[in-house]
């Protein structure tokens, strides 16, 4: 034992790290701050370490070349013992990290922890959030599959909208005019060297300031932050009612971090790795790419915005959003920290959280894309509509499939959901209304008058007229029946 002690003192005499480290570990924290609310920052740091370790292990096998990346991911998934688990840990670690960083930020905002003297801690935190999202996006590119390819395509088209320099920016981003090997090398450099390097520096400074300035005290209504008095008040609080970080608060951090790592591992085992989906080949058009969950809200926003607002939103909203986040601690450096006295902050946080949740849900479940295979594949129109049909009506059903109506309109629960389901369309529209709708379109439907021959339209409409429940007759035009008399068609 004394031998170990000798080695330690020999090293510490030269390194001079023991004292400052012990000081840091024992730095006082306010008693009430040793709370479960304060564990998200350390959890984010733990996840960063997990990502670094799993990332290094992945980099041992991953080949960052356009020709080999996809194969090396499949090698990891299918050939290497536990390779799939490693990929799953890194992928789920990434999702958890984005989520935990966002929760950490929401908690800091809610507790007013960005106020004096911690403004700059917040500023660095905003940059760390942006870098986390940057890691998430570049990581999605590392998974060089169809989602990555088309995700890059969307990214490039967003960048191309910048006035004047858009084209050059795209060229710089992709390393050439197209998505190719140079693009992957570029994103590999960003994902493995540039952003992680910056992240480590920023994280070090972020944690340094937390240690030196002290952790934010529990916000109490009426305990107002003033530049002139805050430092003395905080010092008094920690000496009167404080406890050392180790062991006072650290065990909660440790337990929560361990729980998060366990949760990542459980997700990795249960749900497995992300992709890779199909090969990143633009000639393969049978694909429905979607972004990972942290960008689904953006996908939803862009789907809902009218085209004229897309460019302003894409170019102005992020600038305003980041400026607002960066400016927040300087605008509100003093004043109340307690959420009981900050109704606007609560409203803002609630609005942002609800919008994020709703848009993510919409992005996940809204069937924006037509079902591009429904015209030729899947179950056919139910036999009950066909067995008693006339030759013309049956031919109309073939037109319905061959002209790809079913890609947007479902029958019997199969088909696209861009347009209404047509199972009982005949009860809603008369023959003439159906002909007009097919020829001229309307609502969100294109006009097919120029794409269908008169025979095709007639056959199609005669088929559509049969689409009604057995006990509910098709809609009929009463005026027409009166005009043509009882013998009318």
């Amino acid at each position, binding site marked *: 034992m004394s031998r170990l002690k000798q080695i330690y003192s020999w090293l510490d005499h030269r390194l001079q790290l023991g004292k400052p480290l012990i000081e840091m570990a024992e730095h006082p924290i306010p008693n009430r701050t040793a709370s479960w609310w304060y564990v998200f920052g350390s959890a984010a740091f733990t996840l960063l370490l997990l990502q670094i370790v799993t990332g290094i292990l992945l980099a041992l096998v991953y080949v960052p070349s356009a020709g080999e990346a996809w194969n090396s991911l*499949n090698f990891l*998934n*299918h*050939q*290497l*013992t*536990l*390779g*799939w*688990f490693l990929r799953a840990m890194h992928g789920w670690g990434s999702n958890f990290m984005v989520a935990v960083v966002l929760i950490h930020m929401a908690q800091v905002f809610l507790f007013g922890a960005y106020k004096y003297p911690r403004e700059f801690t917040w500023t660095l935190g905003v940059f760390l959030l942006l870098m986390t999202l940057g890691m998430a996006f570049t990581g999605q590119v590392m998974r060089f*599959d169809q989602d990555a390819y088309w995700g890059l395509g969307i990214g490039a088209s967003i960048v191309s909208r910048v006035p004047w320099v858009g084209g050059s920016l795209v060229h710089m981003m992709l390393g050439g005019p197209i998505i190719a090997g140079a693009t992957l090398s570029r994103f590999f450099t960003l994902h493995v060297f540039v952003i992680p390097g910056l992240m480590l520096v920023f994280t070090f400074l972020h944690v340094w300031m937390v240690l030196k300035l002290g952790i934010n005290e529990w916000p109490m209504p009426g305990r107002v932050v003033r530049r002139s008095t805050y430092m003395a008040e905080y010092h008094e609080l920690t000496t009167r009612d404080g406890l050392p970080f180790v062991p006072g608060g650290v065990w909660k951090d440790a337990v929560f971090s361990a729980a998060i790592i366990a949760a990542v591992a459980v997700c990795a085992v249960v749900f*497995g790795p992300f992709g*890779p*989906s*199909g*090969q990143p*080949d633009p000639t*393969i058009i*049978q694909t429905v790419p979607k972004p990972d969950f942290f960008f689904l809200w953006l996908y939803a926003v862009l789907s809902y915005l009218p085209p004229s607002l897309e460019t302003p939103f894409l170019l102005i909203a992020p600038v305003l959003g980041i400026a607002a986040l960066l400016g927040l601690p300087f605008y509100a450096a003093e004043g109340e920290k307690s959420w009981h006295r900050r109704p606007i902050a609560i409203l803002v946080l609630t609005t942002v959280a609800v919008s994020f949740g709703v848009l993510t849900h919409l992005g996940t479940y809204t069937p924006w894309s037509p079902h591009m*295979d*429904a*015209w*030729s*594949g*899947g*179950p*056919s*129109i139910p*036999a009950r509509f*066909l*067995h*008693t*049909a*006339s*030759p*013309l009506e*049956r*031919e109309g*059903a*073939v*037109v*319905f*499939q*061959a*002209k790809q109506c*079913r890609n947007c309109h479902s029958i019997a629960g199969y088909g696209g959901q861009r347009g209404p389901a047509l199972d009982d369309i005949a009860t809603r529209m008369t*023959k003439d209304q159906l*002909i007009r709708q097919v020829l001229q379109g309307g609502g969100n439907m294109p006009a097919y008058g120029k794409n269908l*021959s*008169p*025979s*095709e*339209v*007639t*056959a199609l*409409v005669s088929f559509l007229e049969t689409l009604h429940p057995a006990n509910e007759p098709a809609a009929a035009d009463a005026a027409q029946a009166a005009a*043509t008399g009882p013998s009318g*068609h």
Partner: protein
Amino acid sequence: MHRAHSVSLLAVCSILIGCASHLPTMNSVQPVPRPDQIVSFDRLYGENCSACHGANGQDGPAIDLNNAVLQQLLDDATLHRVIRDGVPGTQMPAFGESAGGMLTDAQVDALVAGMRRRWASASLVHPVQMPPYTSTLTGNTARGQQLYQSDCRSCHSGRRQQVTDPTYLALVSEQALRTILIAGRPDLGHPGWLTVGGGRAITDQDVTDLVAYLVSLRVATPGQPYPEQSETGKTAPHTQEK
């Protein structure tokens, strides 16, 4: 005490490592193949054919492929050509890459082979010779009309089976008429060549004449939604026979 601890630790470690090396490498889940590498009949048929020709080659709006007579009528080359190039003028699209579709020749072959395997019957023998897929004979419209009146009208006079509707005739090819006359639609309960002529098997000449008659009923401007009203003074052919 210490020794016991380290031994048990070592044991736990080796068990864990042993388990780890036997964990699945996800071999059960195959990498996503390129779409043009898929040659599974079920997958190809389910993605390209089933919506029109029915899930099991039956009960779809287009002709039933799960029909041993039809499978006998068409040879491999014809089936391959129809899938690859489609049938111009009808709703059958071209699926072959060479004709602008998505399927390679190997995939079209896989479809043909799969249909033969599932739906053809090598033991199918007929009492009289089946009319061929295509004919070299010339059709006689007048004889076709007579045949239609005597053999077909009993079923086809009702509005539900109106095959003389010029709009219908504008959408189907002569070959399609010929094929369905011979093969029938057993999935819908419609007879084929052996029984369609009132219990009598029809011949190549009968089929050719009937098709010639039906084709003669085509009009210059098909697809009128209200033919009775649009052609004032001149009634459409299919209302004539009522």
